[in-house]
């Protein structure tokens, strides 16, 4: 098997200052990617940048319409383009968790804003850059972090589960629609992890039964490397010699249909 490296890949991670997001930023940096991360609170962003000085921190809230383009501009300014977007920032909805019938409409709207509309807006703003990466010979992708709550109707997880289910379906449709552009859109369920978000949802959980976010980060980085990574770490443009023939230009999409199940 060819070793797929993350060298030279430009990757943005939302929700990058805690839990899985922070683990991903660290893991992707260690594998040689150039990483920008986004989070709402400046002190958290500054703390993460002190720990991981190679990462570029952006302050912004993906659930706020007015923040999305400023976030995109700063990511693109820092990385000079983008190959991979990881929509990881998530909101549980109202905590403590409660039945849907006791959920305020505004709380459902807030969960949808963070878990569905925010990733949609940010992906749309960055789609031109991902398409440019594909035209340059790259294999760009969007990774939407999902949950088994998107599939299983867990009681009391209504706002979160419904928003993640919608995100998962959006990923499937977008993946089909963007096939011709050479952009993959995957939904990945990292499993139950020992993160601040999980502690908020299930305060009395037995933490020893939960996956470490570092483990989930490694698994997701493996998936990114498998699809978007470059064989032996050779930058894209150097792999393109002379006039691109049909085969060369279609290469990034080969195996698409066999691969779609990987993420689910």
């Amino acid at each position, binding site marked *: 098997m060819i070793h797929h490296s993350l060298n030279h890949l430009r990757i943005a991670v939302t929700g990058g200052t805690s839990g899985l997001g922070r683990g991903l930023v660290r893991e992707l940096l260690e594998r040689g990617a150039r990483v920008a991360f986004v989070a709402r609170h400046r002190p958290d962003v500054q703390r993460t940048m002190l720990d991981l000085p190679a990462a570029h921190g952006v302050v912004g809230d993906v659930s706020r319409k007015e923040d999305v383009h400023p976030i995109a*501009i700063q990511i693109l300014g820092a990385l000079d383009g983008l190959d991979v977007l990881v929509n990881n920032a998530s909101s549980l909805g109202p905590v403590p968790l409660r039945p849907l019938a006791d959920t305020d409409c505004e709380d459902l709207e807030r969960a949808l804003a963070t878990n569905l509309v925010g990733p949609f807006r940010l992906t749309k*703003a960055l789609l031109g850059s991902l398409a*440019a990466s594909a035209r340059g010979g790259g294999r760009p992708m969007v990774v939407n972090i999902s949950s088994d709550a998107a599939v299983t109707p867990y009681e009391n997880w209504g706002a979160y589960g419904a928003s993640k289910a919608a995100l998962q379906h959006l990923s499937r449709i977008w993946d089909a629609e963007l096939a011709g552009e050479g952009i993959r859109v995957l939904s990945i369920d990292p499993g139950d992890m020992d993160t601040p978000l999980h502690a908020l949802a299930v305060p009395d959980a037995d933490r020893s039964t939960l996956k470490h976010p570092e483990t989930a980060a490694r698994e997701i980085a493996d998936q990114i490397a498998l699809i978007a990574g470059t064989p032996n770490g050779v930058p894209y443009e150097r792999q393109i010699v002379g006039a691109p023939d049909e085969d060369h230009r279609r290469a990034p999409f080969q195996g698409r249909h066999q691969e779609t199940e990987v993420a689910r």
Partner: protein
Amino acid sequence: MNAATAPRQDGNRARLLAIDENGRVSHHRAADLPSLLQRGDLVVANDAATLPASLQGTHLPTDRPVEVRLAGRRSLAGHDVTRFTAVIFGAGDYRTPTEHRPDPPRLRPDDELALGPLRATAVRTLSHRRLVELQFNHPPAVVWEGIARHGRPIQYAYVPAPLAVWDTWTSIASQPVAFEPPSAGFVLDWATLRTLRSRGVEFATLTHAAGISSTGDAELDRLLPFDEPYYVPRPTAALIRHTMRRGGRIVAVGTTVVRALEHAARLPGWVLPGHGVATQRITTLSNLRVVDAIISGLHEAGSSHYELLRAFQDDPTLQEMTSQADARGYLAHEFGDVVFISRGRRMFSRRLTA
């Protein structure tokens, strides 16, 4: 011609005036664009995203308000954002037509400006009292954050409602390096790109830092367009060569694409991939070496946009275009209708030979 007064959210509703290589004018919908293209043609667009390049602030030595419009930069590199060419206006905003805007306070070398969270130095005035070399006194990340959060899109009085950044980004917008939208690109949405692909029409992009189109000062406007950095990706240069060899047409989406491609092909040989700075003006006397047709917005005679069209068709044909567009109520400017102009058979051309 009337100007479009609102950002057009759905480019498919725009109208399209076509001029073929014999100078014949026909009328279409912009959504019909794919039907004007043939298998083997190559459409080249500018994928620059637009910076919110208007910064309100204060001229610190006099404590008077100014608006700074970033207008030019040496390169496209993300780290190279501390030095810009900028046009400075006095008090007010886009609601006042630029020709009625007051001058800024008299600028002396190294005057300091406060622009929201940013501090900048007007290092020196350039060839005109409103035109300065501006230096941001921050590291690049702080400049990016300041522009992204404090900046507003440059806009003109004929669009009354304030533009949001997303109004100024085309579907394919990628690197935020343009100072005004490469607006011909509004005609391309993802469905159109898919239709082009299904018809065997190729698509490629370059990135060109489109500069400002008007300063409200005739003297300064004569200097437009300023020098503009661009980048031609290697696959784009390869597709152009491939298309010309097979006899397909190179169709440029926007004047910036013409400017970049003709600059990249200025030396004997081919369109060179890589970075460059377009410095030339394209007018009726210019030889088009690469581009066979242009898709553009409608602009007034005399503007630098219109001047460039004179390299494609002779003046009587362009006058016919303007009078038909006027008669049918076409809308001008960046959110308006579009023209598809083929290079006339009689136009002087030293086309690169495959």
